[in-house]
C-alpha cells in the first residue's frame, strides 16, 4: 500500500490507463502546459506529449462535444472540467448528447467518455462556483455518476470509469485533492462501478454519505459513539447506478436512516435514496428518513453563512438522534 494524495491517485489512474490504452487521452483547460489547475495532471504532458495531454481554450461546450465525437469514433477521452461549475456551459453536450447517442442510434454508436473534475462547494467561492452536480447528472438516463471519498476508491473507480463503455461523470473535490490515504499497489486495481462500501458498522442508525460529506459524517459517528449510539455509515461511492441493496440491508438492520448530501435538497441524491428506501423497506422503518443537505438556497460567501450552508457534524448528530427517538 502506498500513501497518496487524492490528486495523485487520480493521476495514477489516468497515467496507468493511458499507458495501457493508446485510445485514452486527456483534454481540458490548463491540463498540459500548466500541469493542471489543481495539479492533478502534473507531469503528464512530459510523459505523454501534447497529442495526448491537450490544452483547450475556455470552451467547455466545444471540448466536451469534441470529446463525445471522438468517443463515438471509438477513442476514450478523459475530459477535465476545471470545476464542474463550468460543466453547465457544456450542459447540452453532457446530458443531451453523451448519454443519448447509444440509444438514439439503436446501439450503433457508444460514448465511452469520462467527464471529470472537482464538484461541490470548496469554501467561500460564492454561488456560481459552489454547485454540487451529482443529483443533476444522475437525472439523465445513459450517464453514470461516481463520487469517491478517498484516494483508493478514486483510483480504482476512475480506472474502471475510463474502461467503461458508457459515459461517466466522475466527481472529485477541490478540498479533498490533498487528502492522503492508502492506495492499493495492485498493478491493475479496478473497483466495480455501482458498489457501495460499508465504511463503518453499527446497529442504531444507518447514515448514507458520499464524497466530502462522508468525512463530516464519520466525525458525526464518533460524536454519536460518545453518547452510546452506534452508526452504520455507507459510502455509495457510485451515485448512479446506486447500490441500493447495500443500503436496504443496512436499514433492515438499524431501522433508521439519515442521508447526508451536499446537493440542494429538492430532487437530491438524498431524495432518491429516501424514495427507494421507503419503497423497498417501508415495514422496516421505525422513523421517517431524514436528510442533511444544504438549505434550498444558493451557496453564500460570508463565512458564518457558509458554515450554516454546509452539512455539519451537529446537524448529522441531531438528525441521527431524531430518527433514534433519543433526546437531543
Amino acid at each position: 500500500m502506498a500513501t497518496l494524495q487524492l490528486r495523485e491517485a487520480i493521476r495514477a489512474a489516468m497515467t496507468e490507463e493511458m499507458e495501457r490504452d493508446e485510445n485514452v487521452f486527456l483534454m481540458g483547460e490548463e491540463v498540459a502546459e500548466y500541469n493542471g489547475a489543481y495539479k492533478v495532471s502534473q507531469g503528464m504532458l512530459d510523459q505523454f506529449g501534447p497529442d495526448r495531454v491537450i490544452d483547450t481554450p475556455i470552451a467547455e461546450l466545444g471540448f466536451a462535444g469534441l470529446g463525445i465525437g471522438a468517443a463515438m469514433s471509438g477513442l476514450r477521452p478523459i475530459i477535465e472540467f476545471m470545476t464542474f461549475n463550468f460543466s453547465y456551459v457544456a450542459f447540452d453536450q453532457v446530458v443531451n448528447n453523451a448519454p443519448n447517442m447509444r440509444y438514439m442510434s439503436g446501439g450503433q454508436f457508444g460514448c465511452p467518455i469520462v467527464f471529470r473534475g472537482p464538484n461541490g462547494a470548496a469554501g467561500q467561492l460564492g454561488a456560481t462556483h459552489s454547485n454540487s452536480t451529482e443529483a443533476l447528472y444522475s437525472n439523465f438516463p445513459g450517464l453514470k455518476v461516481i463520487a469517491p471519498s478517498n484516494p483508493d476508491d478514486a483510483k480504482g473507480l476512475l480506472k474502471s470509469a475510463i474502461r467503461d463503455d458508457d459515459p461517466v461523470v466522475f466527481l472529485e473535490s477541490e478540498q479533498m485533492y490533498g487528502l492522503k490515504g492508502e492506495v492499493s499497489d495492485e498493478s491493475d486495481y479496478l473497483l466495480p462501478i455501482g458498489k457501495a462500501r460499508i465504511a463503518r458498522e453499527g446497529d442504531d442508525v444507518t447514515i448514507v454519505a458520499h464524497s466530502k460529506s462522508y468525512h463530516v459524517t464519520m466525525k458525526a459517528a464518533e460524536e454519536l459513539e460518545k453518547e452510546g449510539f452506534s452508526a452504520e455509515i455507507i459510502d455509495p461511492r457510485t451515485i448512479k447506478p446506486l447500490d441500493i441493496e447495500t443500503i436496504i440491508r443496512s436499514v433492515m438492520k438499524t431501522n433508521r436512516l439519515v442521508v447526508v448530501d451536499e446537493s440542494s435538497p429538492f430532487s437530491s441524491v438524498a431524495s432518491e435514496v429516501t424514495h427507494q428506501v421507503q419503497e423497498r423497506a417501508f415495514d422496516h422503518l421505525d422513523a421517517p428518513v431524514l436528510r442533511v443537505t444544504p438549505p434550498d438556497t444558493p451557496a453564500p460567501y460570508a463565512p458564518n453563512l457558509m458554515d450554516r450552508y454546509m452539512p455539519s457534524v451537529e446537524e448529522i448528530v441531531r438528525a441521527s438522534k431524531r430518527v433514534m427517538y433519543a433526546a437531543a
Partner: protein
Amino acid sequence: MAIEIEMPKLTDTMEDGVLSAWLVDEGDEVSAGDVIAQVETDKATMDVEAFDDGVLLKKMIDEGDSVPIGQLIAVLGEEGEDISDLVAGGDGAAEAEASATAEDDTSTTASDATETSDASESAAPAGDGQVRDREPEPVPAGTDEEGRRIKASPLARRLAKEHSIDLATMDGSGPEGRIVRRDVEARIEEGEAAPAEPETAPAPQPSTEPAFEMPTSVVDEAGELYESENISQMRKTISRRLAQSKYTAPHFYLTVDVDMANAVEARKKLNALTEKQDGPKISFNDFITKSCALALRQHPYVNASYLAKDGEIRKYNQVHVGVAVAIDEGLITPVIRNADRKGLAQISKETRELAGRARNRELQPEEFEGSTFTTSNLGMFGIEEFTAIINPPNAAILAIGEIRDEPVVEDGEVVPGKRMKITLSCDHRVVDGAVGAQFLQDVKRYLEDPMNMLL
C-alpha cells in the same frame, strides 16, 4: 386501380380538418404533387396534394364539411373505373355530418380508421401497465376503536402484527405519541401482547378528560400560571411501565422492622479492612442487596415473573437484583447480576460504577434490563418507611427506609438501638402473603446477623 384520398394529417396537433375549398372537379386529371383542395386545420389553411396521378372520380365530402383525419374525402383512379364498393354506403357528405355528431362511428367509414385506432393505442404510454402492476397493495393503516388513525412507525406496525399486538391498546413514546419499535418491544417483553382483560385489569384511559379543572389561561396578573415541559422519553417509559404494573399486578405490602446494630458494627469492621486494601466502602444498601439475593435463592416465587401472555409463572434460576437509582430525568435500575454469588466488595464496586454511569446516562440496555427483583432505598432522605411499585416483570420490590436511632428494650432495659423499616410490595398473582412474609423474615435474619451471609 382506384386510390383513396383521405383527410391528411397536416399538422402535428391536428385531429380533424374543414375542407374549405375543392380546387379540382370530378373528372379532372390530377398529377402527383398537384394541390387538389385546401383544408383548415387548427393552425392554418393547408394544401391537400395528390401523391399519385389519375382522374378525380368522386368527391366524398363537400366544402365546409369537417371530418377527422383518415376519413375518405375523394377517390382517384382511371376514367370510367368502377368505384362502387368505395362509395357504397351512400353520400359522403351525409357520412361526414353523421361523423360530426357521432365521432365514435367514423372508424367504420374510413379505410385507415382501424389502423388509426391502433396507432393511438400504441401511442399510449408504454409504461402505463407497469405502473399498475407495481401499485403496492394497500396496507391497513390501523385505527383505534373510534376509527382514529393510530400513529405508529411502519416497523412498529409490522412487529405488532407479527406478535398479535393490538396497537390501539398501546401508547407511543415517539413524537406526537407515535408507537415505535421500542414500545412494541417493551410490550412483547412484558408478555402483555394479548389485550389486557378488561374485567380484572382495566386499562388506563388516557383519553378521559381530567376530572380537575385546568387553568384556562396561561398567564394571569401574578404571572405565568405554569411552565410547560415536554414529557421526556424516560418519563413516558416510567409512566407506562409503572402504570401498567400498578394496574395489572395486584399489590400487597408487608413491613418489618430490622435491628441494624450488628450490621452497623459489621460495616465498620469491613470498611476498616477495605480502606487498607484501597477498596470501595461497603454501604448498608450493599448489605441489603446481598441479603435479598441470598433470601431470593430460598424463595423462588419471589424471584419470579407472572407472564399472562405465555400463561406461565417463570421462576428464575439466577438472581439479578435491580437497584433503583435516582437521576435528573427520573430513575433507572441498574442490575447487579448474580448478586447471590458475589461478595459485598464486588456488589459495592458494581453498584457504584453502575449508578455513576446511570447518572451520566451511559448505561447500556443490558445493564438496566433483566432484573428478577428490585430494591429501592429512600433512607438517605430520612424516609422512615414507604411502599414501592413493583418493577415489571418482577414479582416483588423491597422499599427501604432510614436507619433510626431508637430506644429499644433489651433484656428488660431501655438501650439505644439501630432500627430500619423495610416494606415488601408483592404481586399477589405469584407471591402470597405467607410466601412474602417468609422471604422478609430471611432478609431480616441476614441483616440482623450479617455473619449468616457467610454461611
